[in-house]
């Protein structure tokens, strides 16, 4: 029986990083995710696994430390919250442009600006559509529990190295702060030097006689070279869309009405589906687990089965655009959201659902 420990989502990120062989974490304090670095500093993994943990002078610096570590082929990560992620967007663009693997956790809070410190999902567009300048995407994973936080670190690193791309774990203040039982999966050791050379022959590990020197750069200068690179990225994203979409369905088999919600909102929507089913309304839920790539095909399929869809988000309606694009007019798509750190109750959602669908 695997060990289960009660911990916050943020603590799960830290413990998972250590147990899954992360080489380095570089961060800067910001609510509501400061427990990630606090936990790492308390655990002192440099004494056990050799993992480096460093508090940087800013989010700008921490993402660029991640860039430096990723250049070396190391499993490196950072975490922050919305305003900090804005600062990191320059670095994320460079990481995507240089095709470097890393994991970035965004424990979202309400915005814009300094905003609130309460939970929100208002960085969907920023993170799912790239965030920084230039044509690029990051793989975006949306955890809904402390267990997800634990599991997505390892999954994130796997995807990051498989595709040489930044991976964002798009969490929020609820998932980060909530305490839940977390099963500690078997540990993975850090990569050995030999493994690293095999996995990342492109990395700046020091020029040896058997290869030309490695350069990590996102600079092209010539339009044709840049365009070719952009198209290479596009081809990579197509493979990711083909192979890595992940979603969960709840009561969709006979559903006539579909909720679409990610992260903490999907947990609330499960209760909404239960409540509506008790009232005889055949509701179901699709929870995108990956936001990029998005479960477009599955939503297309479901659009011919259901009477309507409704996205439930802690923002002004961001993912709803992607659902509408997927459905392409095949069924009505509604939206209900709360903002600024406020959270909807199941009753509130049931009322809005009935209003949208003209049900009593």
């Amino acid at each position, binding site marked *: 029986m695997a060990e289960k420990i009660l911990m916050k989502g943020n603590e799960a990120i830290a413990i998972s990083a250590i147990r899954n062989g992360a080489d380095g974490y570089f961060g800067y304090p910001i609510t509501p995710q400061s427990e990630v670095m606090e936990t790492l500093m308390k655990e002192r993994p440099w004494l056990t696994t050799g993992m480096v943990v*460093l508090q940087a002078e800013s989010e700008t610096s921490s993402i660029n430390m991640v860039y430096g570590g990723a250049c070396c082929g190391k499993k490196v990560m950072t975490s922050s919250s919305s305003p900090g992620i804005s600062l990191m967007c320059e670095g994320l663009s460079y990481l995507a442009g240089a095709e470097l693997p890393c994991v970035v956790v965004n424990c979202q809070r309400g915005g814009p600006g300094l905003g609130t410190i309460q939970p929100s999902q208002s960085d969907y567009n920023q993170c799912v559509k790239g965030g920084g300048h230039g044509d690029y995407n990051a793989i975006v994973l949306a955890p809904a529990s402390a267990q997800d936080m634990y599991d997505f670190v390892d999954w994130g690193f796997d995807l990051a190295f498989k595709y040489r791309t930044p991976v964002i774990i798009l969490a929020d203040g609820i998932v980060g702060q909530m305490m839940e039982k977390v099963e500690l999966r078997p540990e993975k050791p850090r990569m050995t030097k030999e493994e690293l050379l095999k996995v990342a022959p492109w990395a700046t590990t*020091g020029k040896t006689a058997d290869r030309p020197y490695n350069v990590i750069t996102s600079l092209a200068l010539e339009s044709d070279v840049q365009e070719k690179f952009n198209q290479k990225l596009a081809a990579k994203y197509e493979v990711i869309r083909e192979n890595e979409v992940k979603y969960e369905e709840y009561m969709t088999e006979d559903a006539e009405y579909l909720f679409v919600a990610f992260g903490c909102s999907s947990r609330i929507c499960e209760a909404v589906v239960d409540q509506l089913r008790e009232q005889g309304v055949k509701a179901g839920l699709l929870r995108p687990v990956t936001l990029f790539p998005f479960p477009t095909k599955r939503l297309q399929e479901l659009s011919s089965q259901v009477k309507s869809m409704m996205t439930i988000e802690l923002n002004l309606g961001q993912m709803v655009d992607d659902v509408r694009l997927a459905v392409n007019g095949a069924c009505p798509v509604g939206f209900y959201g709360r903002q600024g750190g406020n959270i909807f109750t199941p009753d509130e959602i049931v009322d809005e659902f009935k209003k949208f669908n003209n049900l009593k």
Partner: protein
Amino acid sequence: MNIEDIKKPENIVYKKTPILTDNVMHYCPGCSHGTVHKLVAEVIEEMGIQEETIGISPVGCSVFAYNYLNVDWQQAAHGRAPALATATKRLNPEKYVFTYQGDGDLASIGTAEIIHACSRGENIVVIFINNGIYGMTGGQMAPTTLLGMKTATTPYGRDAKLNGFPLVLAPMIAQLDGTAYITRQSVHTAVAARKAKAAIRKAFEYSQKGIGLSFVEIVATCNSGWKMSPTAANKWMVENMFPKYPLGDIKDVLKQE
């Protein structure tokens, strides 16, 4: 005597270090970068540390330093090289890690990164090229531009009231406990270049001693940006830059008094 005779090993008195690639440099004739690149390359060769060296290039003219030195390179976002170097060195303590940055990169947009890398005592080498101007973007004012100096964004000369004062960084970071060696050099004469090379070598050696950051500022010319001939630029540098940025060691924690 034909060319093959001349190329015989016994006739060779000088050889380009293999750490310099054969790529044609994009730098303007008269620019100091080529000389500094050569000095860094020679130090790497003489110390036998090609396999252990990781360079980090900035944004600016020397962004393409990675085309010229035969070591592994990372190309950083503007000003962020010390952050990359921090992680690279901490994750690979056995490596020699150096950044190569201009005055716009290091002393303007990258002040937070360099100051905190110094303050944390990162065991890295920083090569800082101070020519008082943004070369790559067409000769705009840099933080180190002298008062009265004309640039593309100070066409009537730098005015303290309008543009502030020149930023003299080396003495500032010399006050930080995390720095081990701070020196200011130039490469405008053979003697100066030899001294600069000795300083660069010392910086690389110090970076493996665990005593903190080593910083080699090179007061340099940008004759294109300054709109002067290379010779005139050297003269102008001696007369105008050196009084504000005097050459010599500013801090050396291992120096015997």
